[in-house]
């Protein structure tokens, strides 16, 4: 009876209150730049009343009249704010501050989302605002240094080049078979809007991306089972928001260039080396120039002093530009995001450029209160003009002759009378060398989401990727590519691919008192087909036809090839999340995976994972620790897999080869070199991860820390067979590796005053890897770069250690190599066992490894009134690189090489580079010269400096512009390398001499209406 009374009173009061309401008007702004926040949720406490802010950030909400009201404002990426207003407050302004790693943020994880607060795994998140900070076409390059545990380097200085990315070290063993075609067996899985392998990241406009999450530990990645071993990168594109349409334009324009690259020898410097190479070791006499330069043309050029710096002529400063217009808007039921983008980059070589056009459409529609559907997708079109990299030619070409004819055209043969030495810039002749690829990629993902009863949702996601590309190549008889053959060649390669990924996710959410459960069931199917057709011929009639009329090539020369690749992957998975009072968190998952590419009987396997979290800060005893805002401890363990082999690698196949008898063609098949191993199974990684997330000092300091240990077993490797078997390799599960490391991210607001703010984010990652087990317990000794040694990292460099140059003062020298006694001026390598014989079995050792010991990034952001300054520093330390250009030292001077190498002569007892002589490096210094190639690649660099200015609202609002920002960014500004030989080279490139990294200076504008 009492109850009924109270209830009646309550209902009466409620009705009364509802009757007496007023409208509270206000505005939601970004606390940093006072931009209106569109679509922020405003909720009245103690009521179901809820409103969204409009395109000006304005809202109006009915609140009870005559009393204090409390409203909460939420906006993704910003800290929630709860404010109490008194009955007289009107036209209020609520400023939300951007929150990094906010615990209330929704984090995208595999097949769902979760609040960061409830996360038990290790997930790094990078938001839209950070992704567009660096002007680049590749979003992954933009997150360089922002996510701990993720090692990113730009793959080359070519226009449109992508990145190399590796998460938490090397587990699988890269080898000639699994890296063919540029594949990286340690590459993470890319998930775009829920679609696994949903297209190429290079095709996505960074301006279209809402967030990028990097899943690192097994608890997070095991739900991707066989694809999760190398981490998962989840890209979520921007969606429409309710409210008036908002249009944004962002653009930049800049210059690529000022590339650092070793300069070739010129003038006397070059002549001296060449003459020195002819010095008779017995008599010490250098013969006359007509012997040193037996070619009359060369001799004449020397006498006339015609020196050419080919490197200077081969390079240029290129341009890059980007334009993006996007529109976001929508009604309560239908929301849309549209974007159009254009990007163009010209490289530091003429005729090397990359163009990309993007059209994105993301539409979500609510049919009714339990049925949502939508389509997400884009069309990307790109066109790349590639070319054979002439830098090695420019560095090694004899620096003599005349580069241009009198009429300004390129002189194909710079040295008079020498028609075998072609100009390194011969490809710059118009139409001489064309290599153009056009590609298009259509992504379309449709989804339907059903929520029939409370707590239960079913989502079906069908992602498709249609790709096609055409590469056309033409090289004339005097191009670098055809120089040795002296006939033209033209070809066309067509590729097309069809890919779909159909995922179904059933989620049930239930809460009983303080217990909260989420159960997820998943089915996932992937199907991929790719086709390729190649046609080519030689000696076509008209050069101007390029590759557009292959029928004009010599009929007997034509080649055609075609290929087909298909693979399927089917998986079922289940996951349970449990949380008690938001304090104790638990997650368990299991996935069963089947892959077509594995051997019959070994296709299926299961991948379980468990993890737990303890939100310490919610415990009563932490209440009084005011400095700590939140503290969570996490631990996880799980198993993930990898197959690293390509489709059909478990089949023993034949190759077709060229063969003919006389002029009669003869079809011929030979073994492809691989023996089949019938019991090939999955590579498996077992990872334990222990981490903590701390927010402290009024949320001014955020720390994330993870320690992990990954043990990977059954690594697939094409093991070398004895050559006498006539076969080359057999794929076997042969090795185990271990990766152990820490990832740290620390974000701090260092200074904050009314007008000035200085914040910084530092990431630090350390990883140590080693091979723990090899088949038969024996090291696998191959060449210096692909030997596998127990106890050493996977990509170790195993060779003689160079310790300088043999000197006259070392005489008499007794040490021998291959039975040959060293002479002064030879390369001195370490005699490990001190037996006086440099022996390949006893004296080689691991001198370095490809992966860094640690790497990190430091982001500093300064805001002063309308100005913002961002400085990004990065470092990679402890990696060894193969300095390819070091191998261009030419001891005979028959060709040129880098100019700053100090070589040994009888009068110059240098300890750096060996004595000149007649012959090549491999003939003069067999097996020892490689010891000079592998050097410490540690570097520190100022990767980006960006200065921006946002015009005051008072000025821009007159033109209906809500934000107008100008900025200038300089990239790769300064680099410090530990090894002085890398002084003229950007070591982020990793030692390769082709397509070195240049610098960029870019000016841009962001404009929002």
């Amino acid at each position, binding site marked *: 009876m009492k109850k009924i009374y109270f209830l009646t009173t309550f209902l009466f009061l409620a009705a009364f209150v509802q009757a007496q309401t007023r409208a509270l008007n206000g505005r939601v702004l970004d606390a940093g730049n006072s931009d209106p926040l569109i679509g922020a949720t405003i909720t009245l406490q103690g009521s179901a009343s809820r409103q969204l802010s409009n395109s000006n950030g304005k809202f109006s909400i009915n609140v009870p009249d005559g009393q204090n009201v409390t409203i909460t404002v939420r906006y993704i990426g910003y800290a929630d704010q709860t404010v109490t207003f008194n009955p007289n407050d009107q036209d209020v302004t609520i400023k939300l501050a951007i929150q990094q790693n906010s615990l209330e943020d929704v984090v995208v994880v595999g097949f769902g989302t979760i609040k960061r607060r409830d996360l038990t795994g290790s997930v790094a998140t990078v938001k839209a605002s950070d992704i567009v900070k660096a002007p680049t076409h590749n979003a992954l390059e933009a997150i360089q240094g922002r996510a701990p545990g993720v090692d990113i380097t730009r793959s080359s200085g070519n226009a449109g080049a992508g990145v190399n990315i590796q998460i938490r070290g090397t587990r699988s063993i890269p080898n000639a078979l699994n890296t063919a075609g540029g594949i990286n067996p340690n590459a993470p899985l890319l998930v775009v809007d829920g679609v696994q392998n949903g297209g190429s990241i290079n095709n996505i406009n960074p301006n279209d991306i809402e967030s990028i999450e990097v899943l690192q530990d097994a608890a997070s990645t095991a739900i991707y089972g066989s694809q999760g071993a190398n981490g998962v990168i989840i890209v979520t594109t921007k969606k429409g928001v309710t409210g008036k349409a908002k249009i944004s334009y962002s653009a930049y324009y800049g210059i690529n260039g000022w590339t650092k690259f070793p300069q070739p020898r010129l003038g006397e410097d070059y002549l001296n080396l060449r003459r020195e190479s002819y010095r008779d070791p017995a008599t010490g006499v250098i013969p006359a120039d*007509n012997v040193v330069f*037996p*070619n*009359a043309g*060369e001799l004449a050029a020397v*006498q006339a002093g015609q020196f050419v710096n080919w490197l200077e002529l081969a390079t240029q400063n290129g341009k890059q530009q980007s334009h993006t217009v996007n529109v976001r808007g929508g009604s309560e039921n239908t929301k849309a995001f549209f974007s159009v983008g254009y990007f163009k980059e010209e490289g530091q070589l003429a005729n090397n450029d990359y163009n990309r056009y993007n059209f994105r459409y993301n539409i979500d529609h609510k049919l009714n209160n339990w049925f949502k559907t939508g389509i997400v997708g884009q069309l990307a079109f790109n066109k790349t003009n590639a070319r054979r990299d002439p830098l090695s030619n420019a560095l090694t070409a004899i620096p003599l002759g005349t580069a241009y004819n009198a009429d300004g055209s390129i002189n194909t043969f710079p040295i008079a009378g020498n028609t*075998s030495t072609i100009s390194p810039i011969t490809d710059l002749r118009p139409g001489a060398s064309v290599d153009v690829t056009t590609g298009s990629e259509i992504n379309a993902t449709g989804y339907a989401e*059903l929520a*029939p*009863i409370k707590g239960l949702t079913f989502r079906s996601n069908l992602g498709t990727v249609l790709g096609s590309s055409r590469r056309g190549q033409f090289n004339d008889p005097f191009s670098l590519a055809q120089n040795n*053959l002296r*006939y033209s060649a033209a070809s066309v390669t067509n590729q097309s691919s069809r890919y779909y990924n*159909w995922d179904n996710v*059933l989620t049930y959410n239930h809460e009983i008192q303080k217990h909260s459960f989420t159960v997820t069931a998943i089915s996932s199917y992937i199907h991929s087909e790719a086709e390729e057709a190649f046609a080519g011929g*030689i000696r076509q009639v008209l050069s101007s036809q390029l590759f557009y009329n292959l029928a004009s090539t010599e009929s007997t*020369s034509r080649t055609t090839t075609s290929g*087909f690749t*298909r693979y*399927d992957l*089917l998986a079922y998975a289940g996951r349970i999340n449990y949380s008690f009072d938001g304090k104790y968190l638990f997650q368990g998952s299991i996935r069963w995976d089947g892959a077509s*590419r594995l051997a*019959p009987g070994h296709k299926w396997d299961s991948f379980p994972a468990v993890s737990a979290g303890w939100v310490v800060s919610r415990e009563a005893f932490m209440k009084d620790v005011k400095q700590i805002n939140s503290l969570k401890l996490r631990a996880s363990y799980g198993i993930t897999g990898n197959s690293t082999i390509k489709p*059909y690698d*478990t*089949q*023993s196949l*034949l190759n*077709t*080869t*060229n*063969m*003919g*008898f*006389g*002029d009669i*063609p*003869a*079809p*011929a*098949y*030979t*073994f492809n070199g691989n023996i089949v191993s019938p019991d090939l199974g999955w590579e498996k990684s077992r990872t334990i991860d222990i981490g903590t997330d701390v927010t402290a000092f009024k949320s001014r300091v955020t720390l994330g820390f993870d320690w992990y240990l990954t043990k990977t077993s059954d690594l697939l490797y094409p*093991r*070398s*067979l*004895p*050559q*006498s078997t*006539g076969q080359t390799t057999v794929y*076997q599960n042969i090795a185990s590796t271990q990766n152990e490391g820490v990832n740290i991210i620390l974000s701090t607001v260092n200074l904050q005053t009314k007008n000035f703010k200085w914040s910084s984010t530092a990431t630090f990652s350390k990883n140590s890897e080693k091979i723990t087990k090899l088949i038969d317990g024996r090291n*696998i000794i191959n060449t210096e770069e692909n030997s596998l040694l127990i106890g050493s990292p996977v990509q170790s460099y195993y060779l003689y250690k160079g310790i300088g140059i043999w000197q006259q003062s070392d005489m008499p020298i007794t040490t021998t*190599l*291959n039975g040959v006694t060293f002479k002064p001026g030879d390369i001195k390598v370490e005699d490990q066992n001190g037996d006086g014989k440099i022996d390949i079995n006893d004296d080689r050792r691991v001198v370095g490894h490809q992966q860094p010991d640690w790497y990190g990034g430091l982001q500093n952001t300064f805001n002063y009134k309308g100005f913002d300054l961002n400085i990004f520093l990065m470092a990679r330390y402890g990696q060894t690189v193969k300095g390819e250009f070091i191998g261009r030292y030419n001891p*005979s001077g028959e060709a040129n090489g880098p100019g700053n190498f100090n070589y040994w002569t009888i009068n110059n007892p240098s300890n750096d580079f060996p004595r000149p002589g*007649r*012959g090549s490096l491999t*003939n*003069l210094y*067999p*097996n020892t010269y490689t010891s000079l190639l592998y050097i410490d690649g540690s570097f520190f660099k100022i990767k980006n400096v960006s200065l921006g200015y946002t015009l005051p609202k008072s000025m821009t609002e007159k033109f209906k512009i809500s934000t107008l920002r100008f900025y200038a960014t300089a990239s790769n500004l300064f680099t410090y390398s530990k090894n002085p030989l890398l002084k003229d080279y950007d070591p982020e490139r990793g030692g390769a001499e082709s397509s070195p990294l240049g610098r960029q200076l870019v000016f841009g504008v962001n404009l929002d209406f």
Partner: protein
Amino acid sequence: MKSNKYKIAVVGFCVIAALSCTKNLNEYNPGGATPDATWTTPEGFVTAVNGAYQEQRAYYGKEDGTLVSEGGTDLWFTANKISFANQVTKYIGLTPASTGSAGTIFRLFYRAINQCNAGINRIDGAGFTDQADKNRRLGELRFLRAFYYWHIVEQFGGVNLRTTETQSAELTATRSSVSAFYDLIIGDLKFAADNLPNATFWGNEYSRASKKSALGMLARAYLSRAYYGTGQERADYLVLARTTANDVITRKAELGSDLWVSPADLWNPANNRNNKEALYIISNSTNAQLDYDANGNRLHAWYLTTYSGRPGLVRSLAYGFDGQKRLQPTRFLLNLFNEQIDGRYAASFQETWTANNAFTWNASTAATYGKAASVLGTALVPGTSRAMELTKQVVADKATKPWVLYDINDLYNTNGTIKSLTDFVPLKKFLDASRTAVDGQPGFADIMVIRLAEMYLISAEAEFQLGNYAAAATQLNVLRTRAAIKVPVNQTAAMQVSAAEVQTGGIDFILDERARELCGEHLRWYDLKRVFNGNQFVNRIKLDNPDIVDVQSFHRLRPVPQVELNALSNGAEFGQNEGY
């Protein structure tokens, strides 16, 4: 409630639809070809036979084949004395880890042997109904296996003798004796000789193995085998070598082979295709799709000297591509010829070049080439004037000749070592008329692997070793008669050699004659190692090629590549060749 049932029905349908997508995970590979699918019909089986020829073409016409078979002998040194392929050209740094061209042969030829074994093992399952057809294919495969194994056993000694296709991860190997190798080689060749057709059968596919190929190779194998034996065994094999070689000579018309009337005709580029003197040919086509790779046959370049860029000379098709020099002759080789009576010198070596570009001697060029003031102003007329001369003669007044001229004393020191770092007398046997681009490196000429003349030399050598000096002289005189200069004075009589001369000259005389006839033809290293023991091998090379100083007796065999021993689980037990 009704609505909920409807909702649940929709979701239930979707879930079931999702779970039922249990697709087939079998691989679908329509573009791939497996041996079991391909080599089980007679038509498909031919692709296995054709594939077995493949690796020969990676040897002949490529650098490795020339370096490993002619380099490191008494005849050749590296062009311009540069450091090049030192392991096989100079025996410097030849180790298991650093085998140079020899290691390439090991890898390629075992690959080919596996292909042959696969074919030989599988032919019974290939569905041949015509026994003669089947035996012809088997004959080709067994000829090829013997061919590859002969190179392996001569280069590496008694290593791993495999006769079955590798189908699983075989990680152990055992050594077989040299005689076991030869038993297989001889067995294969006898089968091939019995079952292969005469050359005409193949028609335009003339570079397939035919009966004459098998018999020629068999004669070569018997001769090599004889030297591993002693006493009666040795004599037996010598007789077999002689008999087989003589059989080829006697039946040359039936087998489809004949000697050209002069060395000039033999090496005339116009006679290159399907050369009538050949017993076995590696063919190359101007259609690059039929060649091993786009480079085709680059043999034309390996022995040439630099002429382009010299006064009055530009690179031409006729004089060849001089941008890829590899080997130059020793003074010993040049002096083996009496060029006054022996036509083989002029047919094999080029001493003079006629101008193909206008040029007038000026002061600076004259100074460069050491010319007297008297040549200044002399114009070279293309097609008429001599532009260059590199000669084994001694020339008296070189400075006054208005052309580039280096004589034997400019080219060689008095002790026989090479003096000139820029010039040498080039071997022109392999000049290629099928090339179309002056500066293009690819060549498309055929290569004679075994030719009829070798049969006379094999017969002569066997007779010599059997003590039949007169018979030896008779065979040698067939070649010497052909080689004799006929005009303006017929030197046939002067070229004849007597039994006594052969006896006195000893094996050196046979070797010298082989050099005069076969220099550059991928045989010299095998000749030296065949007839000499370790010390003789070293002495011969050091005496006649004094630039080679590092050769040792154990170099008669190459080292087993270290990669092979590393990959073997019983590498230590298998063991390295002696000395390495």
